[in-house]
């Protein structure tokens, strides 16, 4: 079953079109990255999917149930871009609150496991107001995982994390994929998305302008061959041209040390897609 299905989704705020007919699917156990400049509609898309915002047109469903319905909410976990927990609660109490609200029967064992997953086991009894922003963000991720949701919607989950925290989250996402949890990851960190996501969708002005696996999106950027005379780049060459080029160089008496087919990085794909737009 598709974890998240969005078709023809549109959202209008007054005169501004935040989303213009977006189609997107997140399959079971799939990790999909959502990229785009500020104001592209990424957060709006995630908010529609979790029922915080009503769509102007189109449809969104979570595990077969209409987005925002109780069945849909039971199947998903969500971490907002801007969120806060009551300062007087401890990490354990925040998770207890969300266990009761989501109807989770995981009890203390689930809370312990989640706090371990986000490296907050030692901060179990620490009040939220005494936590750093990064710790609160990791607690937010743990909160989103309460009740073992089938779909996880993460809106900028690593924006306040240091490199170690980001790595923790990246490993967590990979382990979730291993458990069959679907994830829609909205992030500005291209390297992070490239590392963990199965597929990527790039939004611009409320529409999907590019979508596919990182490999599909990557474009050929020539063939680089290292010979005894140094590196030579054939910018117009494709992967299929590599054997011929090597044969020609060998026939010319050159020694070949390395051959690599050059493709664009996700960053280059992204910049091509958004045309340098930042907001």
């Amino acid at each position, binding site marked *: 079953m598709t974890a998240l299905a969005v078709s023809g989704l549109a959202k209008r705020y007054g005169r501004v079109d935040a989303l213009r007919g977006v189609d997107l699917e997140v399959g079971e156990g799939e990790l999909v990255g959502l990229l785009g400049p500020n104001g592209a509609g990424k957060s709006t898309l995630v908010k529609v999917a*979790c029922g*915080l915002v009503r769509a102007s047109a189109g449809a969104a469903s979570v595990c077969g149930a209409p987005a925002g319905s109780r069945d849909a909410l*039971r199947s998903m976990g969500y971490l*907002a871009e801007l*969120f806060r927990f009551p300062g007087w609660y401890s990490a354990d109490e925040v998770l207890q*609150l969300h266990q009761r*609200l*989501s*109807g989770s029967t995981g009890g203390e064992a689930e809370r312990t496991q989640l706090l371990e997953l986000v490296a907050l086991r030692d901060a179990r009894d620490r009040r939220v107001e005494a936590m750093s922003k990064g710790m609160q963000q990791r607690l937010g991720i743990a909160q989103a995982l309460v009740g073992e949701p089938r779909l996880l919607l993460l809106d900028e989950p690593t924006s306040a994390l240091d490199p170690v925290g980001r790595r923790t989250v990246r490993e967590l996402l990979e382990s979730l994929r291993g458990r069959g949890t679907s994830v829609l990851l909205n992030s500005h960190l291209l390297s992070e998305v490239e590392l963990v996501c199965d597929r990527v969708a790039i939004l611009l002005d409320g529409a999907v302008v590019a979508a596919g696996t990182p490999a599909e999106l990557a474009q050929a950027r020539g063939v680089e061959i290292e010979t005894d005379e140094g590196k030579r780049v054939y910018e117009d060459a494709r992967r299929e041209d590599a054997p011929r080029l090597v044969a020609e160089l060998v026939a010319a008496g050159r020694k070949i040390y390395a051959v690599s087919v050059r493709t664009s990085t996700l960053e280059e794909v992204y910049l091509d897609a958004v045309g340098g737009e930042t907001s």
Partner: protein
Amino acid sequence: MTAVWTIVRYGLEEALRRKVFAVVLLLTLGFLGLFWLGNHYAFRDLSGVQPPAGIDARTFAGSFIFGLAMFATLFLGVVLAIFLTIGVVRGDAERGLLQPLVVRPIGRSSLLAARFLGTVGVCVPYVLAVYFASMGITGSAGHWWPDRIVTPGLELAAAVALVAALSLLGSVFLTATANGIAIFMVFGAGLVAGLLGTIGHALSSHTLERAAKIAAYVIPVEALYQDALGQITADTHGVTRFVLELGPFGGAYIGGTPVRLWAVAYLGIVAAVALTAFARRDL
């Protein structure tokens, strides 16, 4: 049901941890202390007072001073109710507190109803406690007790619950500051209408009295307060009754069952509008 009670408990914990609760408690203690002093001196000097013919001095002093306490009780209860609810929807959404709760499978209507119950769970006991404490002070100092003991307290508590509902409704549309100002102005408008009615009563101006009555029904907080004031001297008649109807802060008019039924219907209307608006609101 567990989820609803979880939100009720969440609201109660939040209310008790807010500084405004401590401030209102301190103000209440200050008020009760001063109120005890006022009662002590008023009733100590009562034997030396020569009231106009037809006025029972003890009834007049007791009901007047207790009516003053009822106004203070209502005011403090309203302050508490407003500050506990002004930011429940838009305010909490802007701070990011609301979203993690709304995406849980409890339903927006249950969430809002639970927040209302949480506020009422703090405000109603508070109002009743201050009401009965004031009554005890006046009763012990002046040996005067109201004609109706429980009903006026319940009406004050209901008035505060109505203010909480209005404030929750306002919180769906307005920022916390704007909502607080708006609800205090609505409350103030009701009080002013009550005072105008009192002036109309003293001048026998039926137009003013009618206008005040309509205003009291538009804002039934005032109608409940007037009825509560009227109930404390429900069995008093003659000149004493006429003077008491002028009231310390608005008239004391018995509205009876129609006022209470209207207050219930009003609460239902406010709740329906708030729930509908919250269900449609983008967060």
